[in-house]
């Protein structure tokens, strides 16, 4: 066990974990930030996507020991009121079915739009291709990313 001071959503959290513990489980089990989801545990679905220093990463394979002083943003901290342009677009397009994958989709889209604020349809598809939605909400995810790009 080691003690970690983590910068998450603009706050400092102190917690104990074994160094190899994936950030996902530290967020969920230690800190109660359960918006970040477990889907596969092997970086293959995108449900666990969070931002580390603004970059989208798969927290299910990202050991807590690697976080250091990096700034972590989870779905809970993407915006104070849930009104980040991507969250707004997701609501307007009414994307979610079961909703389980959507935190990961939103975090992937938000990081992507920061690097590419006016993407083409093809760029959106490439950026979102790694995130599985078992409910098949892909059309609306695509539409919402497009809409969000007009709000950023």
């Amino acid at each position, binding site marked *: 066990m080691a003690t970690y001071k983590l910068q998450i959503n603009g706050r400092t959290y102190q917690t104990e974990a074994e160094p190899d513990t994936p950030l996902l*489980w530290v967020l969920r089990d230690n800190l109660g930030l359960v918006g970040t989801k477990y889907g596969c545990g092997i970086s293959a679905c995108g449900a666990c996507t969070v931002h580390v220093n603004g970059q989208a990463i798969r927290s299910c394979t990202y050991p807590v020991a690697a976080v250091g002083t990096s700034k972590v943003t989870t779905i809970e901290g993407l915006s104070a009121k849930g009104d980040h342009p991507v969250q707004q677009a997701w609501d307007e397009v009414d994307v*979610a*079915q*079961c909703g389980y994958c*959507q*935190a990961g989709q939103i975090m992937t889209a938000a990081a992507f739009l920061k690097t590419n604020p006016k993407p083409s349809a093809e760029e959106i598809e490439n950026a979102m291709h790694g995130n599985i939605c*078992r409910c098949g909400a892909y059309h609306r995810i695509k539409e919402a990313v497009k809409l969000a790009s007009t709000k950023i």
Partner: protein
Amino acid sequence: MASTTSRRDFLKMTATVGGGLLLGFHWLEAEAEASVFNAALSGTGAEFNSYLSISSDNVITIFSPNPELGQNIMTSFPMIVAEELEADWTKVKVLQAPLDTKRFERQVTGGSGAVPHSWKRLRTAGATAKQMLVQAAAKRWNVSDTECKAEMGVVTHLASGRKLSYGELAADAAALPAPQDVKLKDRKDFKLIGKIVKNVENHNIHTGKPLYGLDYSKPGMLFAMIQRPLAFGKKLKSVDSTAAKSMPGIVDVVKFKNNVAVVGKSTWQVMKARKALKLEYEDDRAIESSADHDRIFSELMDGDKATVRRKDGDVNAAFQSAAKVIKAEYQCPFLPHNPMEPMNFFAHVREDGVELVGPSQTPGSARAETAKLLGIPEDKITLELTRLGGGFGRRLMTDYVVEAAELSSIIKAPVKVIWSREDDMAGGYYRPAVRYRFEAALDDKGNMIGYKLRGVGINAGNPTRENNFPSGAVDNLLIESVDHRSPISTAPFRAPITNFLAFAEQAFLDEVAQAAGKDPVQFRLDLLQRAKSNPVGAIRYNPDRMIGVINLAAEKSGWGQKKDVAQGFSVYFSHASYVAQVAEVEMKNKKPSVKKIYAATDCGEVINLSGARQQVLGGIVDGLGHAMYSYLTFKDGAAEQNNFHKYRLIRMKEVPEIEAHFVDNGIEPTGLGEPSLPPTGGAVANAIFKATGKRIRNQPFINDEVFKVKSV
């Protein structure tokens, strides 16, 4: 008088109105003060006990009793109540109700049956409440209730313009006897039903609120994972848990049945310790591989034992007199359901009762099974429903609930049992694998005079739908099935059976139409005319509704009029609804690529246009993805694919454009969570044939040679 209307009378009256539905307000008791605030909203922790309540400050709380797994029931059920209630939708709060069989009926998500089952009840619930609010207002103004109108949560006296809000009237209205035979709205006056209404849980989903079973926790709760046998047909021989037990955070390792549960303080610690278990298994039942299944399919297909499901006329004579006989076999693999949220459930078995929390499509059976296992009465068990991160039929099973309860009873502690993706994919339940043999006899004019189907399944039960189309349209018909009992467990999968039967049948009918020299759409329409005017035997479908969607899909897609794209047609009846689809395929790098799918759906009244479109699109993506890419094979009883790196689910780039159209006929709603899935595989296979001249008869399509062509 008014204040003495007892709760029991109220229930009795509403029962007759709602056919057993416990509508009504949350009348705490007659002496309750004007505020009839819902408990959950006020946070006092009182019980849920009805469909709807109204607070003195106009908040209308509607409880959604059915499990929500993405079919959007938490939005569409309350919409139906609010429509008749004339509520202001912006003031409606929706809450998930716990399992309560005394107050709600059919708290099940499955069979696309929720809206059809509850449509009248929910409308009556809303209309009755509205009528009581109007009466309360009329009484206060000393006017006749026919002079008053309810709209947007306010009752207005039309002549004087006086107004009272529902909140101001709620307590009075409560004391009135519930009226009988309330009038329901004319559909032309609907303000919510049929419109686009956004998911009531959007904000919670978009901000990562704890909604799902896996998110649930409570103080003192332990985490557990269970090592189940790694192959079907094996049983646990021995376990050495010494190393696992000594690992950090591990509280206990317990063995029950064929399971070894590792219990600890966090998910990761449990996951790691589990790898340190030393396990030995031995053969218990047949150990089967996919190669065995292929052999079994062939044997049973040609064997002389089969259950006759339907027999019309004289098939042997028809086939003997036929000018042409068409025969083909189709096969579909096992599939895991793979809801994005893996299985999980929380259980706390105490001396005085049991607490269960989690995602279930059938909370009633989960509780009944738990009661049976623990040997306690059901009323000692509470079951709280979380949102479900998908279900697809997997969560109709109760294994993962009962297992959590069993573990909690052994360790005497509150525990959440979590399945890894690997547990879920390799040790769960599957869509059964099936092989079909179809045979059709044509006379010299190309009329189908004989039709035979034999379905052979692995734990598939009856893999046919013997009273569906084309039964009723063919004079001589034989439908049979054979089932192989296997240790590999199977379960209903979204659109059970029809999710692959429809593909096989609709692709085969395309072959028959081709052999008959007929246009595939006209071929089906001719058969349906026969089924309509002079049906052979009993049929379950309505030929007119099927003709309706066929015509709509043909019209919207410009069927037969496009030169630059290959179109394929399919139509299917399931869950009392009708869906026709046209798929369009283009060649890209010498390989077929699905560009667009048109869907025409007749599900009667559409409740929520946004949710309805989602169900159609989702079902098509589900049907297309699984037909194209997904399969699970077995080697020595063990699944060979256990996570998304080996098992392919459809992703964004593989999804074609989809156009969803609905027949606007105002018929009572029929199912919508499933019916759009079955036709997709057939439409796509038929379009691929048009594009390549090659019939694909096995799923997944991606394993067919048309996709193995080297691109340029």
